[in-house]
C-alpha cells in the first residue's frame, strides 16, 4: 500500500526513548523466563512473571546519558515505577545524609525510604495507614532507621477510626502502632517531638478559639505506647495554629527534659516596643511546665536603614512570628523570624543567644524581593544556616552577620543541605529537587520507587 504521509507522520517512523527499548538484556531476561515455563497453559500474570525474574532492571537516564544497572534481590511481586518525585500537599522530605532519607509522599499517605540519595526508593508505609485510610499529619525522622508518625483519620474514612502513632526502627520494614484516643477529634492539629524514648505530642484544638486549655501536651516515655497529659500549653491556640509542618522546628528538645517552643504568630509590636505575648518558651522538666523567655528581643525596625532597633517607635514592623527554632543546648539556640510592613515587604531575621536567652544577637536582615509563605530556615548548626526566601537561597556561615544569596530558577519552599554541595528541596508544586553544586542549580530528582507485594490486592 502506497502511503502518502505528511512530514510530521514520517517523524513517527522512528521512535527513540531515552533509557528504554528492546535491549539485549531484556531479551536474555525473556529467554530465561521462557526456560522456566512449566506448561503452555500457565497463567502469565504479572506476579508470576516477577517471581520468575529475580533481577529487576533499573533503567534511568542520567544527564542525557544512559545508565543501566541491575538491582539484585528485588523481591517477587514487586514493581518499579519511575519519574520525578512529587510529595503532594502535606508531603515532606527528610534526608538523614547524602544517601539515606525518608519521604512522605502522596500528601502524607505513603512513606518512602532511600539508601542511595533518592534515586531509588522503597515503600515503607505502615499497613494500617493504608487499610484505615489514615494520613500522616506530623512526623519525626530520627535517623535512617527510626521514624515516628502521627496519623489522623481522613475525611470520609471509617467512622470511629482514631488517631494512631506509628514507629519503626528498621527503616519502615516493620512498624509498631498505638491508638491516640486522647486527640480531641479528626480535625485536630498535632505536633510531634521525640527525644530518645520520650515523645511529646501537642494536641491543638484550634477550633475552640483563644483558650489555653484547648491545647494539651502529652508525653510518652515508652516509645509511644502509653501517653499521659503533661499540662496545658502556655500559649493560645491561635498562635499554635501555624505550628504545622511549615514550621518544622517550632518545638525542639535537646534532651529528654529540656526543650524550646516558639510560636509563629505574634501581635503587632507596639510603638514602645512592648511585647505582651511571649513567643519563645522553655521547659526543663520534660514539658510539664513552660516558662516564657521574656528577654526575647522586641522587634522594631527602622525603615530608614533597615536595621534593628529595640524599644523605639521608629519604623515599626509587624512581627510575623518565629519560623523555626534550633536548640543546640541549654545556652545556645536560634530563632528564625519574619517581619512585615506594608509598602516595605518582608524581612527575615535570625536571632541567636549563647547565654540561655539572657541576651540576643540579630542577624542582618534578609530582604526577599517577593514573599512566599514557605520562608524556611535550615540549620546545620548555630552559625551555618540556609534560608529560602523569595526566589533566592540565602546562606550564612557566621550566624547571620553576612549572607550570600543564590537566585533560584525553581521556587523552592524548603531546602535541606547534606554538605556544602549536596542538598535537597521541594518546590511549591511539591516536586523534589536536588543540587550537587551547593544550590546554584537544581534538577528535579528522577526517582524509581519499588512498590511492594502487599500493594497488590490480588
Amino acid at each position, binding site marked *: 500500500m502506497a502511503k502518502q504521509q505528511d512530514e510530521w507522520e514520517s517523524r513517527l517512523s522512528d521512535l527513540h526513548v531515552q533509557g528504554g527499548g528492546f535491549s539485549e538484556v*531484556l531479551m536474555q*531476561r525473556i529467554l530465561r523466563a521462557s526456560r522456566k515455563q512449566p506448561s503452555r497453559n500457565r497463567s502469565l500474570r504479572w506476579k508470576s512473571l516477577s517471581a520468575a525474574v529475580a533481577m529487576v532492571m533499573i533503567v534511568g537516564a542520567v544527564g542525557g546519558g544512559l545508565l543501566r544497572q541491575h538491582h539484585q534481590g528485588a523481591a517477587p511481586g514487586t514493581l518499579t515505577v519511575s519519574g520525578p518525585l*512529587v510529595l503532594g500537599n502535606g508531603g515532606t522530605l527528610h534526608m538523614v545524609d547524602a544517601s539515606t532519607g525518608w519521604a512522605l509522599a502522596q500528601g502524607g499517605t505513603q512513606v518512602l525510604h532511600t539508601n542511595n540519595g533518592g534515586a531509588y526508593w522503597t515503600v515503607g508505609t505502615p499497613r494500617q495507614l493504608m487499610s484505615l485510610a489514615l494520613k500522616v499529619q506530623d512526623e519525626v525522622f530520627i535517623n535512617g532507621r527510626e521514624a515516628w508518625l502521627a496519623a489522623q483519620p481522613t475525611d470520609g474514612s471509617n467512622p470511629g477510626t482514631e488517631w494512631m502513632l506509628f514507629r519503626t526502627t528498621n527503616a519502615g520494614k516493620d512498624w509498631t502502632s498505638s491508638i491516640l484516643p486522647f486527640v480531641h477529634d479528626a480535625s485536630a492539629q498535632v505536633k510531634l517531638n521525640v527525644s530518645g524514648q520520650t515523645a511529646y505530642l501537642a494536641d491543638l484544638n484550634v477550633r475552640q478559639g483563644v483558650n489555653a486549655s484547648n491545647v494539651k501536651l502529652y508525653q510518652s516515655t515508652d516509645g509511644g505506647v502509653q501517653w499521659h497529659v503533661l499540662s496545658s500549653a502556655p500559649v493560645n491556640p491561635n498562635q499554635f495554629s501555624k505550628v504545622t509542618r511549615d514550621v518544622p522546628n517550632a518545638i525542639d528538645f535537646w534532651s529528654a527534659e529540656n526543650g524550646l517552643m516558639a510560636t509563629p504568630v505574634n501581635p503587632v509590636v507596639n510603638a514602645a516596643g512592648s511585647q505582651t505575648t511571649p513567643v519563645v518558651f522553655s521547659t526543663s522538666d520534660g514539658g510539664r511546665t513552660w516558662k516564657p523567655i521574656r528577654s526575647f528581643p522586641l522587634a522594631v525596625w527602622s525603615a530608614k536603614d533597615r536595621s534593628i532597633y529595640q524599644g523605639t517607635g521608629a519604623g515599626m514592623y509587624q512581627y510575623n512570628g518565629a519560623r523555626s527554632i534550633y536548640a543546640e543546648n541549654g545556652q545556645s539556640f536560634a530563632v528564625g523570624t519574619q517581619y512585615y510592613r506594608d509598602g516595605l515587604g518582608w524581612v527575615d531575621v535570625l536571632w541567636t543567644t549563647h547565654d540561655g536567652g539572657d541576651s540576643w544577637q540579630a542577624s542582618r536582615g534578609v530582604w526577599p524581593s517577593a514573599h512566599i509563605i514557605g520562608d524556611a530556615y535550615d540549620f546545620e548548626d548555630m552559625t551555618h544556616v540556609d534560608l529560602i526566601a523569595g526566589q533566592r537561597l540565602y546562606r550564612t556561615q557566621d550566624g547571620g552577620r553576612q549572607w550570600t544569596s543564590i537566585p533560584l530558577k525553581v521556587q523552592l519552599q524548603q531546602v535541606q543541605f547534606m554538605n556544602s554541595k549536596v542538598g535537597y528541596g521541594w518546590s511549591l508544586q511539591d516536586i523534589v529537587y536536588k543540587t550537587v553544586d551547593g544550590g546554584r542549580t537544581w534538577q528535579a530528582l528522577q526517582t524509581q520507587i519499588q512498590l511492594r507485594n502487599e500493594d497488590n490486592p490480588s
Partner: protein
Amino acid sequence: MSPFVNHKPHHGQDPLSELMHTYGQDVWNFAFSLCSKRELADDITQDVFLKAFRHLDTFRGQSSAKTWLLSITRNTVRDYMRQAFVRRVTLVEQLFFAGEARSAESEAVDAIVTDDVWQLALRLPAKLREVLILYAHHQLSTAEIAQVLHTTEGAAKARLHRARTKMKEWLEGGGKDGETAR
C-alpha cells in the same frame, strides 16, 4: 504448522530468539506507545514473547508475524490495564508523580521522548493513538490495522482520519494542548 516451526532458524537461533531479534523493537515500541512507561513496556514485551512462544504452534500464518505479535501486544496491554494491581500502580504513579497543572507523568514522558511529534502522539486518546502508531510507525495497511484492532477496515480508516486530524490541529496550533486528550 507454524511457519516458525518450519523455518530454519538463522545462525542456529531458536524460534523465540529469532522472533525477538526480528520483532523485539516493534513489540517494545508498540507497548511503550500504549502505556508510556518504560518498565511496563519491558514487562509487556516479555509477556508478549512468552505468549507467542507458547502459541507458536497455533500461529497459522494467516497474518504476518508482525501483525500477529502487535495484536498480542495490544491485547496484553489491555490485560495489564485491567489488572487491579496495575490500575493501582498507575494510580500510585499518578499520585506519586502527578503534578497539578501539567502532569509529572507527561513531563516524564517528554523527558524520555524528545521528539515533539511523538510527544503529541502519545497524548492522543488510546483509540486514536494506537491506530496512528500502527499506521505511521509500524507501516501497517489499514487492513492490517483492522486485524490488530479486531475491527473493520472502515472503522480503522475512520479512526486514522480522526487521529491525523487531531494531530494536525495540535501541530498547527503550535501548542501541546494534548493534556486534555488523555
